[in-house]
C-alpha cells in the first residue's frame, strides 16, 4: 500500500510524514508502529546507531519550530510526529523495552505484574547478586562493584543474544521462552541500576 500526499497527491516515502514534492507535513498516523514511524523494518536485531541517525534526521524535518507559522493543523501534525519519534527512539534503542514492545505487538505481556516468576534458579541468582551488592556497598568496595558490574554486563549480553535468536523471526514462535528471557533481562537491568546507585552513593560520600 502506497500512501500519497493529502495536498499534492505525490507518493510518500517511509515514514509517510513529510511530502518530498510539496513539503507538506502529513496528518499524523497513530496506526503506525514505532518502527514504521522511524522508517525502519520491524526487527529485534537493530543497529542503534542507524536508528538514532534516522530518527534525528526525521526530527529535524518535522521539528515543530519549522511549522511555527504554519496553519494550526500542520503545527499539530508536526508535534504529533515528533512526539512519537521521541518515543520510538527511547523504546527501540533499549534492548529490554524493544523486546517488550515486539512481544506486546503479538499480545504477549511478559512483564505484566500478574505474571508469576516460577524459575527458582533465576530468583536465587538474582537474590545472590543483590546480596553481594549490599555486602560490597557495606564494605565500600568500589572495585568489587566494578567486577560485579562486568559480571552482570556479561549476563546481559548473553540474554540479549538469546532474545536475538528468539525474536529473529517475527512474530516470535516461542513467546514463552522469549518472555522468560525478557523477565531475566528486567531483573538484570534493575540490578545494574542498583549498582549505579550504590557507586554514586559511595563516590559522593
Amino acid at each position, binding site marked *: 500500500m502506497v500512501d500519497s500526499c493529502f495536498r499534492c497527491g505525490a507518493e510518500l516515502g517511509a515514514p509517510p510524514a513529510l511530502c518530498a514534492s510539496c513539503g507538506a507535513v502529513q496528518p499524523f498516523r497513530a496506526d503506525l508502529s514505532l518502527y514504521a514511524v522511524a522508517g525502519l523494518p520491524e526487527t529485534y536485531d537493530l543497529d542503534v546507531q542507524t536508528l538514532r541517525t534516522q530518527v534525528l534526521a526525521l526530527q529535524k524535518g518535522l521539528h515543530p519550530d519549522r511549522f511555527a507559522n504554519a496553519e494550526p493543523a500542520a503545527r499539530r501534525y508536526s508535534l504529533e510526529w515528533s512526539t512519537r519519534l521521541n518515543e520510538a527512539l527511547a523504546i527501540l534503542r533499549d534492548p529490554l523495552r524493544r523486546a517488550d514492545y515486539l512481544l506486546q505487538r503479538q499480545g504477549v505481556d*511478559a512483564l*505484566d*505484574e*500478574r*505474571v508469576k*516468576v516460577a524459575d527458582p534458579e533465576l*530468583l536465587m541468582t*538474582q*537474590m545472590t547478586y543483590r546480596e553481594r551488592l549490599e555486602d560490597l556497598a557495606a564494605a565500600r568496595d568500589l572495585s568489587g562493584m566494578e567486577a560485579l558490574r562486568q559480571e552482570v554486563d556479561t549476563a546481559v549480553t548473553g540474554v540479549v543474544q538469546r532474545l536475538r535468536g528468539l525474536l529473529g523471526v517475527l512474530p516470535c514462535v516461542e513467546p514463552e521462552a522469549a518472555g522468560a528471557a525478557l*523477565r531475566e533481562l528486567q531483573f538484570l537491568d534493575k540490578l545494574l541500576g542498583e549498582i549505579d546507585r550504590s557507586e554514586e552513593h559511595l563516590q559522593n560520600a
Partner: protein
Amino acid sequence: MAYSEKVIDHYEHPRNVGALDKDDSGVGTGMVGAPACGDVMRLQIRVNGQGIIEDAKFKTYGCGSAIASSSLVTEWVKGKTLDEAMAIKNSQIAEELELPPVKIHCSVLAEDAIKAAVEDYRKKQGGAPVAAQPEMAGAQAAH
C-alpha cells in the same frame, strides 16, 4: 509517591530482617520476584513440632511498599499455623498499609512469598502437600 505512616514505620524500622538456615528441615524458604519492576524478595519461616510458625525472617530488595509488606507479613505469621499463613491475602496487606493501587504488586509479592515458604516447608517434610483449607476468618484478625 506519598507513603502512609505505617509503610514508613516498617520501612524505617523493618521487623525481622535477616535469614534462617535454608538447609534446616524445620525452615521453609520462599523466593519471589516482580517482573514488573525487577525486584526480589525472600521470606523464611521456622516451624515447630506442633506445626506453628515460631520465627520468620525476610530480605527484600525492592521499594518501600515491598519492604513494608514483607515486614508486616513476618509479624503476622508468627504464632500462626501453616494454613492460617496460607490464607493471608495481599488485599489485607494493602489495606493494613494503605497502599495506593499502583503499589499492589508489591504486596502481592509478600503474599506469594509466604505461600512459597509454606510450600517449601511442606515439601521438605516429604508429605503430600496438604489440601488447601477453606479460607480462614482467623487470618483477617491477624495482628
